[in-house]
C-alpha cells in the first residue's frame, strides 16, 4: 500500500511562495499528473515528495509512514529526471543496477532485475553501452528501467518526455502508461503538456501560482473546469470567454443576445464555451470570421464576437471564407459560467 498524503505543504524561497498549503491525496497505484505552466510549483512539489527539497511547512506521508523528515533513500521512491540523469561513466547495465547496488542486493538478484526491466523497456541489446552512445529516447528508457528495477512503492517523474521529439513522445507516452499500470506503483508525473496529462492520468491536479486549482479525472477537468484558469489552460484551443451581464434572474445578456444561465444575483459573469461545442447556422451569437485554419479533420475559425477573440471548430467541409458573418449557436448543456471576482465556476 503506497497512498501518498500531502498535508498543508508549503514552500518558500526567500520571499517567494512557491507552494501555498497544498493538500493532495494520491491513492495507491494511482497515476497522478501535476499539470501547470512553468513556475507554478509542480516540480517543487514533486521534489518535496522525493526529498530533494525540504518543505517550509506541512507533512508528507507515504503509506502509513511520515516521510518528510526522511532522506530520499528511506522513502521507498524512485525517480525519472527531466534530463534523464543517466550516469555517463557507467554502462547501461550499471546505471540500471545503481540503486540495487546501493541497496546491497545479491548479484544474482541484481542481474535478474536489470535483465527483466531492460527487456521490459526494450533496451536489453544496449546493456553494455555507455550513455554517450545512446539516443535521447534510449536514455529515457534507461532512466525508466533504473526506476522500475528498484520495484519502488512510488515512482516520481519530472517532465520525463519533454526532451523527446514529437513522434517518440507519443510512442513513449503509450508505453510508459502500460508499463506503469503493470508495475503496481503509485505515480506522480509532472508535465506542462496537457495532451500528456489528459492521455496518461487517472487524475490530474492543475496547479497555478503555488495552488492546486482543480484535481479531478481528465474528462471532468475538460468538461467542468472549476475555475476560469482551468478553462483557459486546458484544451487546444482553450475555452472561449465572453462578458455577460444580468438582465433578469437567470437571464444574461451575452454579446447582444439574451441567454438563460445561473440564477446568481451577481451583476456580471463570464460566459464560457468550448470551440467544438458550437453549431453554425441559426444562433444568438454573431461572429465575424477573421482567419481560417484548415487542419484536415476539422477547420479552426478565428472569429470576433463582441470585440473578443472567439474560436470555433467546424467540419472541414463547411464552406466559410474570411470576412463572413456567422450565426453561432452554443450547445446549451456545454455552456459554463464563471464569477469574474472569484474566478470560480458558477453552477447553472
Amino acid at each position, binding site marked *: 500500500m503506497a497512498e501518498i498524503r500531502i498535508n498543508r505543504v508549503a514552500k518558500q524561497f526567500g520571499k517567494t511562495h512557491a507552494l501555498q498549503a497544498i493538500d493532495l491525496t494520491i491513492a495507491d497505484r494511482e497515476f497522478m499528473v501535476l499539470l501547470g505552466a512553468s513556475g507554478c510549483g509542480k516540480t517543487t512539489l514533486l521534489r518535496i515528495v522525493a526529498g*530533494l527539497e525540504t518543505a517550509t511547512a506541512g507533512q508528507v506521508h507515504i503509506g502509513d509512514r511520515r516521510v518528510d523528515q526522511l532522506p530520499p533513500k528511506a522513502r521507498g521512491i524512485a525517480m525519472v529526471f527531466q534530463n534523464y540523469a543517466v550516469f555517463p561513466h557507467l554502462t547501461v547495465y550499471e546505471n540500471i543496477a545503481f*540503486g540495487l547496488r546501493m541497496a546491497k542486493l545479491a548479484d544474482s538478484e541484481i542481474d535478474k532485475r536489470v535483465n527483466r526491466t531492460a527487456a521490459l523497456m526494450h533496451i536489453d541489446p544496449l546493456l553494455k553501452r555507455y550513455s554517450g552512445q545512446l539516443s535521447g529516447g534510449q536514455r529515457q528508457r534507461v532512466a525508466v528501467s533504473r526506476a522500475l528495477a528498484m520495484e519502488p512503492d512510488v515512482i516520481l517523474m519530472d517532465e520525463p518526455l519533454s526532451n523527446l521529439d514529437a513522434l517518440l513522445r507519443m510512442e513513449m507516452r503509450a508505453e510508459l502508461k502500460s508499463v506503469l499500470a503493470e508495475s503496481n506503483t503509485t505515480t506522480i508525473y509532472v508535465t506542462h503538456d496537457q495532451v500528456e496529462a489528459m492521455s496518461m492520468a487517472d487524475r490530474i491536479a492543475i496547479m497555478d501560482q503555488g495552488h492546486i486549482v482543480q484535481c479531478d479525472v481528465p474528462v471532468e477537468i475538460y468538461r467542468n473546469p472549476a475555475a476560469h484558469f482551468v478553462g483557459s489552460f486546458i484544451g487546444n484551443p482553450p475555452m472561449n470567454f465572453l462578458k455577460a451581464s444580468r438582465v433578469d434572474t437567470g437571464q444574461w445578456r451575452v454579446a447582444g443576445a439574451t441567454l438563460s444561465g445561473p440564477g446568481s444575483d451577481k451583476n456580471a459573469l463570464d460566459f464560457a464555451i468550448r470551440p467544438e461545442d458550437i453549431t453554425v447556422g441559426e444562433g444568438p451569437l454573431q461572429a465575424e470570421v477573421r482567419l481560417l485554419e484548415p487542419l484536415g479533420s476539422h477547420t479552426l475559425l478565428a472569429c470576433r464576437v463582441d470585440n473578443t477573440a472567439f474560436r470555433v471548430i467546424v467540419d472541414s467541409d463547411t464552406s466559410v471564407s474570411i470576412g463572413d458573418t456567422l450565426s453561432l449557436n452554443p450547445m446549451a448543456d456545454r455552456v459554463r459560467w464563471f464569477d469574474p471576482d472569484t474566478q470560480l465556476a458558477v453552477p447553472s
Partner: protein
Amino acid sequence: MLGSGRAFRRPLPGRVSSHETALGHVHTRAPDSDAMNSRSLPYLLIAPALLFLAVFFLYPFSLVAWQAFSTDEGRLTTEHFADMVGYWKFNDTLRNTLWLAAIVVPIQLVLSLLMATMVSKMQRGRDMVLYIWTIPLGISDLAAGLIWLAIFEQTGYLNSILHGLGLIEQPVAFLGYQSKLTLFVAIMLAEVWRATAIMLVILVAGIGLIPKEYNEAAEVFGAGPWQRFRRVTFPLLKPSLQTALILRVILAFEVFAVVIALSGTQFPVLMGAVYERQFVLRDTSVAAAYAMLILAISIAFTLLVLWWLRVPKEARI
C-alpha cells in the same frame, strides 16, 4: 544585412537564388577557394605561435638536451649523468624531492577536493571564500617561503607565541640542521599553503560542470554523501582532476624558492642542485643532466596520472 537583402530581393541573373540573397548570403567567390581557405586557415593562424615555441622553447631545449648528453668535443656521453649520480648529496636530493612530492601532492589533492566540494555547496559568500583561499596564488613562491620563514625562524612568530604561552624557555631552532623533521614539516606546510589553490580553482570549475541531476539521482537511488562522491562526483571529475594533478605534480618536482628560503642548502632538492651546478659550480653540463632528470620524472608522473584517471572515450560526458 537587412538593407542589402532588401535591395537584392528580385532574382539576380546567374546561379544565385533570390532566397539566398534575401538572407544576405551572396556568393561571389568560387566554392573551391572557400574550402581551401577554411582548411588552411586554422594552421595559418597557429603558425606564429608554433614559430615562437620553436625558436624560444624547442631550440634552447634541444641545446640543453645536447649539453647533457655530449662532451666538449661533441661526442655522445653519459658521463655527466654518472657525475650527477655519483655526487655525495645526490641520493638525498632525489629522495627529498620525491618524498616532498609524495606527501605534499596527496595532501593537496584531498584538501582541494574537500575545499572545492564545500565551496560548490555554498549558497552565499562563495566568491569571497574562493578569493580568500586563492590569495596565496598571487604571491611568488619566494615570498611565500619568506612568510613561513618569519613564522618558523628562531626569532619568529611561532617561537614568540610558544614563549608567550610559557611552553618553552628558549627559542627552538625549528629550521636547524639537527631538526630534519621540523624542517620538512615547515617546507611541507609552506608548499601546501602556497599551491593548493591552483588545484582548488580547477576543481571548483570542474565540479561546476557536473550537472546537479547526477547527484540528485544518486541520492534518490540510495547513495549517501560518501558514495555520491566516490561513485558520481569523483568519476565525473576525472578530466579536471587530471589537469589539476598534472600541473601540481610537475610544479612539485620543480620546488625551489620555498625550500631555499626556509632551509638554505640543508634540504637539497633537484631544482636546487640545478641552480648550484649552474651558478655556483659553473658545471653547465651536469646542470643540464639534472634538468633532463627532472623532465623525465615529470613525464613519468604525468603518464601515471593520465593512466590512473583515464576515462574511456565512450564514457565521457
